[in-house]
């Protein structure tokens, strides 16, 4: 039987792995699909091409479909997030100069204690702090605002958009003092001697949802079979990726010229969670640095749509309550249940929950039997209660 072609857009980062692996290891073909993967240069490009119907699905920052739902983007057909592709995978880096002064003041770069790191940063940069993030609607921006806000930086904090490939340059040019970006771009800046890694995203928020699989709503409605096949292929790729012994192979595949086009060793750092934090070669090991499957990492909790919507709404002068309502309708837990049940995905009983409530992984009741949910606590104990979701 001939394979059905599907055009998928991705931005070259390690968390594009589920799409690339689904194609390379045959999970797509198994579902009768031929993934045509298009490497994109900008997040706005992913959104616009999806909106114009030039691609069927996109690897996208989780807050982007939320912003679209709130009318903060161009007028495009409705975009829905059908599953998360990854959680974590971000790292916070500071300039070499800031790192030196933090070290002088006794900071040990343990790459874990977010409060300690935040306070040390505040001591080293008591005035203005400029932090680069990849997009105005990104998990990176939320991590930075949450973390540094809790460490006393407001209002001296200036968060600016810098395209990931330009993070290192913009730090070298003195335009930003720190940045938060997805791998491999943080490690790349360390290798060039321009930055030191201060924290993984997971030290600020244990399970920060990072990328989602986003489709046009009209496609999910007119092509339910293709939508299901696509979701299952990607979900199985994520399951394969979360077998620890597969991460080296994944790094090899991702680093190829047609995908990320960089040394496999660089992609491997984020994928294996063994990061070199300073140009001196200090290594820190972060279990669960990036997750593609384990602990129901793919389930698109409506409460997370509400979480991002509330924060985005408050920053843009919108009413939070209707914003949360709108955003939740775009995280398609219904499609997740319908299309992944038969593939064997563990399905939680509810589609919304308290966010930030799990200090440790926890076993909970699932639709069938038990399932494990990943720890999702914030470093400062923040808990977010979503509005009631039916």
């Amino acid at each position: 039987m001939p394979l059905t072609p599907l055009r998928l857009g991705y931005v070259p980062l390690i968390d594009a792995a589920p799409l690339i692996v689904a194609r390379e290891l045959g999970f797509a073909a198994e579902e009768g699909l031929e993934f045509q993967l298009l490497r994109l240069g900008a997040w706005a490009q992913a959104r616009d091409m999806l909106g114009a119907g030039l691609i069927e699905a996109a690897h996208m920052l989780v807050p982007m479909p939320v912003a679209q739902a709130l009318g903060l983007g161009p007028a495009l057909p409705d975009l829905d997030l059908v599953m998360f592709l990854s959680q974590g995978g971000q790292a916070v880096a500071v300039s070499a100069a800031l790192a030196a002064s933090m070290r002088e003041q006794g900071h040990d770069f343990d790459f874990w204690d977010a409060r300690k790191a935040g306070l040390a940063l505040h001591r080293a940069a008591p005035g203005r702090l400029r932090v680069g993030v990849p997009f105005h609607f990104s998990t990176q921006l939320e991590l930075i605002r949450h973390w540094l806000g809790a460490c006393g930086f407001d209002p001296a904090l200036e968060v600016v958009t810098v395209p990931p490939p330009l993070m290192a340059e913009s730090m070298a040019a003195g335009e930003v003092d720190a940045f938060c970006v997805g791998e491999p771009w943080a490690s790349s800046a360390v290798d060039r001697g321009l930055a030191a890694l201060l924290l993984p995203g997971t030290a600020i928020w244990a399970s920060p949802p990072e990328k989602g699989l986003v489709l046009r709503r009209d496609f999910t409605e007119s092509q339910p079979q293709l939508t299901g096949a696509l979701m299952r292929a990607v979900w199985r790729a994520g399951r394969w990726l979360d077998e620890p012994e597969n991460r080296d192979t994944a790094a090899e595949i991702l680093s190829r010229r047609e995908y990320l086009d960089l040394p496999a060793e660089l992609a491997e750092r984020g994928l294996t969670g063994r990061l070199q934090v300073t140009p001196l070669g200090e290594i820190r090991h972060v279990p669960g640095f990036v997750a593609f499957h384990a602990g129901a990492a793919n389930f698109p909790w409506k409460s997370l749509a509400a979480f991002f919507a509330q924060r985005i709404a408050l920053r843009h002068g919108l009413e939070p309550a209707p914003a949360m309502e709108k955003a939740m309708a775009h995280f398609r837990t219904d499609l997740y249940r319908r299309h992944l049940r038969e593939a064997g995905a563990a399905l939680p009983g509810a589609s919304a929950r308290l966010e930030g409530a799990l200090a440790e992984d926890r076993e909970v009741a699932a639709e069938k039997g038990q399932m494990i949910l990943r720890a999702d606590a914030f470093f400062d104990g923040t808990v977010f209660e979503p509005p009631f979701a039916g």
Partner: protein
Amino acid sequence: MDKRLSIVVIEPDPERAAPIVDGLREIGDHDIRIISEETGLARHIAECRPDIVLIDLANPSRDVLEELALASGPTERPVAMFVDRSDEHLTRAAVEAGISAYVVDGLRPDRIKPVLDAAVARFHMFQRMRAELAATRAALEERKVIDRAKAVLMKARGIDEEAAYALLRKTAMDQGKRVAEIAQQLVLAAGLLSCR
């Protein structure tokens, strides 16, 4: 009379920027500027105060423009909003041509459309030229390889040029491959066999 529009084209490749600017000149006497550097984009935009910004759909700096678009207050007016919201067809044509436009809110559609139409046409033309150039280069490259393969055969088998080409073509047909591929293989093999 309408005032002149201030149009900024963000394009690091001068070869590509030139025809776009020419195309825009043809539609009216507008103030057109090219920004080629990637750093300090926000500052440059603020200085130009453009009505319309044109940029490659895939340019990573678009994500910076998105932020400027959202941040701009009524008094700053750097760029205000994405592709014209009213015309879906035009938006799609622009995305297909690989161009994105940022337009100040409130600019009349009849002023935006000719600018976008011109830019879309030029982007298409540039893409076609690039494709043609690449095809010409590839053809030239193949020609060279075939000539070298013919020379190898003429020398090794003591045949003339016509016979050498006939032999290449027959081999290609028998193998179900293109003449250029067979020539490439032959040249490679000959290179390996000659122990110089």
